[in-house]
């Protein structure tokens, strides 16, 4: 079996100047298998988004390593943010093509790739539309297509449905599940939504705050889903989540930290 596409070992990240340092997470280990959806669940402020940014190469670890197995074509990781961040002066097609125009991703491009991706993401008819003509759900689909088209080995999702209304959110979750399976994508997703984590994750890792570490992991393979009732599992995850959330700095109002 091939090496796992993503491994973080002993990851530690601190913010702030010496003396008043704040440890976001410490000694963190995780390993993601090819083709799975790995969900990082945790209350705001536990450092899960920072961890994702580190894996995406937008931030760096103070200690520890991130190892990503490189894909032959395309790049190693791609990230989708909570906001679609579509460039308003580009059409849907141009937004999706954005990354392919950069030298670093050019090897991922091939004839027909963009058309195929637009079709896979149900965007063919919107190809010439501009972002201000899209609904929130459509915009987030474009954002996801823009990342997937560069064929990253691992796709990082930073609360991708967090800004959507509940109905769109539910539809997109189902849709993501479908596209993840049909394209065989490896996904690391960050969320604070227990329902979302249980719906999408093959494995769900709960992160506790200050300093952040993974305190518990649930396997949600199809066998284990059958072996125990979902309601039972949900109750257990929720309970653990509640215990962990109490540890958050100034827990009741502590969401503002937003780390």
């Amino acid at each position, binding site marked *: 079996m091939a090496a796992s596409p993503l491994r973080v070992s002993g990851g530690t990240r601190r913010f702030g100047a010496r003396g008043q340092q704040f440890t976001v997470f410490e000694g963190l280990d995780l390993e993601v298998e090819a083709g799975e959806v790995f969900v990082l669940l945790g209350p705001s402020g536990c450092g899960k988004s920072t961890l994702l940014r580190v894996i995406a*190469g937008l931030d760096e670890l103070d200690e520890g390593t991130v190892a990503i197995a490189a894909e032959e074509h395309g790049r190693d990781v791609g990230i989708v*943010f909570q906001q679609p961040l579509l460039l308003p002066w580009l059409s849907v097609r141009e937004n999706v093509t954005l990354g392919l125009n950069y*030298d670093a991703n050019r090897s991922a491009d091939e004839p027909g790739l963009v058309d195929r991706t637009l079709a896979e993401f149900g965007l063919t008819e919107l190809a010439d539309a501009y972002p201000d003509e899209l609904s929130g759900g459509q915009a987030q689909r474009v954002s996801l297509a823009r990342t997937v088209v560069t064929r990253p080995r691992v796709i990082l999702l930073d609360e991708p449905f967090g800004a959507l209304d509940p109905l769109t959110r539910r539809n997109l979750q189902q849709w993501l599940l479908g596209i993840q399976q049909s394209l065989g994508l490896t996904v690391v997703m960050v969320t604070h939504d227990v329902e979302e984590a249980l719906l999408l994750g093959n494995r769900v890792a709960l992160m506790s705050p200050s300093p952040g570490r993974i305190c518990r992991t649930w396997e949600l393979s199809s066998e284990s889903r059958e072996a125990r009732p979902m309601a039972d599992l949900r109750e257990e995850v929720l309970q653990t989540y509640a215990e962990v959330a109490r540890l958050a700095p100034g827990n009741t109002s502590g969401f503002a930290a937003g780390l």
Partner: protein
Amino acid sequence: MIGRPPAQDDRRDARGRSATGVLTAVGYPLLGAALLVVLWWLAIKLFVEPGSFLSAFAPDRGARALVDLVGDGTLNRHVIASLKRILVGLGIAAVIGIPFGLALGGLPVFSKTIGPVASFVRMVSPLSWTPLAIIWFGVGDQPVYFLIAIGAVWPIALSTSAGVAALDPQWLMLGRSLRASRVELLRTIVWPGIRADVLTGLRLALTTAWIILVPAEMLGVDSGLGYFILDSRDRFAYSDLVAAIVVIGALGFLLDRAAHYLLTPRRRTARRPARQRVTGPAEVALAEPGAREYRI
């Protein structure tokens, strides 16, 4: 004949093109112009003795001179010379001002170091440089280019810098996450993102350049509208002088309108999306982005 209404890019005017709309767009400005001419004529009539040299400043004398000057081609030569200087001067200002503004808006150290110096230089009236310009560049077009450029560079640089500073940092993060190089970021995200600001700067710069042009042409050149004003004075051709002033005002007005029309982007450019920050479960947005404004 009522002329075509001036090019409208302002959506408020374009919305209702009713009879009252045309009246507002064309009728009122014409009324204002007519009022000015009447006041001008009255002032000459009331305060100037008939036959004195000041009576050459009357509107009818000016109009006649204007027709003659356009007819024999004298004015055309000066207008073309002036327009060429404006274009070259603006071009130089843009070539220097846009990169300067990029650095000012994008590099904090640069803006802290050079910003105050730039404010100092900006406050020196461009015409203060005239003697230096002539010593440096000699007589001819070059000192005029220099004076226009040194005045027009600021609106361009400051608008560009403001555009860069207001650029959504998340767009840059997005670009980096897609592994764009610095040059690629500049080309695909920064430049399109600030284009509207740069165009605004160019428009402001054009107005500034036009105001600098006339006095700048009063030294060391033998063509252009500024030169023509002094030349008319020396020839005691005061009605020619009036005609030149009218042409300067009218051309400036038309240039500003044209720039407004040409340099206001019609297609979507960067108007950054309403920024919203969702920091925790308590604040999960309940609306799609289109409805964002109505929340809270």
